[in-house]
């Protein structure tokens, strides 16, 4: 078995006095899609945000345990948070392009990092937009505002924006919950294509979506990782009764 790209061990997280994650140990394998499912408030989004340290932004957050990315402890005191976030891209639930041009949205990560020439940035923007299946739709209007795009296009733009940093990992936090079925289908297909070059973690409310696109699935409940297994296995013979109940819609 290959070494996992991301590994958490005994991860605990508190928001103030609220104990949100309990002893979560999970391996995330490279070039796979890992889905995280569970009822609202189970901690799946919070766990996702541990991987790029976005929880740091919430006051009174306390974390114990370890998260490693390619063997490196990302919560070690000397770790540079910005370099972690450049390596671990994130796409949010609601499409959130900047009120800038399409080009400047995608180029943002490269511009802040600096050190790239203009032609190089242009090249990378094109590469990222192509990778996010958006290039053909926007190549003639790179200078117009990203806000004029449709919801599905905006979400693919956000994916392109994250890809421009050439990340190792892409975190998707319910990326299709604000989109129509067609846009959703497109993003699901895109995930299957993207996993060739980047490791994907997706939080979803939609069990069927997890079944369609993920290789591994993690089921979380009340802040605990109840079950983690190959998706085909978990969806046919879940090991835990709670997983079975959730998958069959007894609660959720």
């Amino acid at each position, binding site marked *: 078995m290959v070494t996992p790209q991301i590994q958490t061990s005994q991860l605990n997280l508190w928001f103030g006095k609220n104990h949100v994650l309990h002893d979560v140990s999970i391996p995330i394998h490279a070039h796979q899609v890992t889905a995280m499912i569970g009822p609202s408030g189970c901690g799946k989004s919070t766990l996702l945000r541990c991987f*790029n340290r*976005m929880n740091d*932004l919430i006051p009174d957050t306390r974390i114990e345990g370890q998260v490693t990315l390619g063997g490196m402890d990302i919560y070690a005191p000397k770790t540079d948070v*910005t*370099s*972690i*976030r*450049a390596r671990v*891209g*994130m796409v*949010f639930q*609601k499409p*959130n*392009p*900047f*009120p800038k041009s399409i080009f400047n949205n995608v180029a*943002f*990560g490269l*511009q*802040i*990092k600096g050190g790239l020439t203009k032609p190089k940035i242009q090249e990378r923007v094109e590469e990222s937009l192509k990778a996010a299946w958006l290039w053909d739709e926007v190549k003639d209007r790179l200078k117009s*505002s990203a*806000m*004029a795009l449709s919801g599905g296009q905006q979400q693919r733009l*956000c994916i392109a*924006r*994250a890809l421009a*940093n050439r990340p190792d990992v892409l975190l998707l936090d319910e990326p299709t919950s604000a989109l129509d079925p067609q846009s959703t289908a497109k993003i699901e297909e895109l995930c299957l294509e993207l996993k060739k070059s980047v490791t994907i973690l997706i939080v979803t409310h939609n069990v069927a979506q997890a079944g369609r696109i993920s290789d591994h699935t993690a089921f979380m409940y009340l802040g605990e990782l109840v079950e983690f297994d190959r998706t085909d296995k978990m969806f046919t013979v879940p090991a835990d009764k709670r997983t079975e109940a959730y998958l069959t819609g007894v609660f959720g």
Partner: protein
Amino acid sequence: MNRRKTWNALGTGILSATLLATFPFLLIFLAQMFYKGFAVLSPEFLLSAPREAMTAGGIFPALIGTFLLTALSILIALPLGILTAIWMNNYGKPVWLIRILRIAINTLAGTPSIIFGLFGMAAFVNIMGLDVSLLAGGLTLAILALPVIINNTEEALRTVPADFRDASLALGATTRQTISRVLLPTALPNILTGAIISVGRVAGETAPIMFTAATFYSRRLPGSLSDEVMALPYHIYALMTEGTHPDEQVPIAYGTALVLLLLVLLVSAVAIFIRYSIRRKRQW
């Protein structure tokens, strides 16, 4: 007719009536200003200095003085206010310190302007030895404008959706980059609109410059920051209270008041226009 409809009609009626009730006052006020002030208004009135013990001539030095005082104070208060607001909004720690600062700022915003005048005289004119000067007046007006600019900038920064900040940070931007490349550009139009409105307020203030900058009568324009200046609001005050020839001077005071009013209206109109064009373009 059911009761809810009756109450609704009554409530709407009362609200409309109160709104309409304010209009006559505004109209009477404006009519009065125009009627009494328009008579003396002329290019010569705007572009010449007062003559014959302020019974004739124009208001050019006061116009320039008000322009300089306002520009100087905004030039000082705007960067300071914006930086303060950014700090309070993004870096400010600990929470209790921010809370105290906010109370202080709001207290300053509600302080009568004459108190600023006294403070300016004590701090700038006497202790710092700036004498009654353009600089002392500009500093005093800057302190007056500061709380307004800080509150307005904070408000503008708060209206930037948190999504934008999250997106920027998640791409590996530092807090500083997020502020300079996402937060500020997004909030800037609103910040500037607020700044322009505070220009209007500063231009009309009399009390803060009374002891710090304004002079009763000067035929020449200020040559440096340490010169005394004439200013429109103080000119009105002087003509109405200390004039010895009310027959000639009261019309000049009304003319000056009309000019000041038109200037402030013009500045507000610019702000409203900017805000309107932003709202039309904004897409989030």
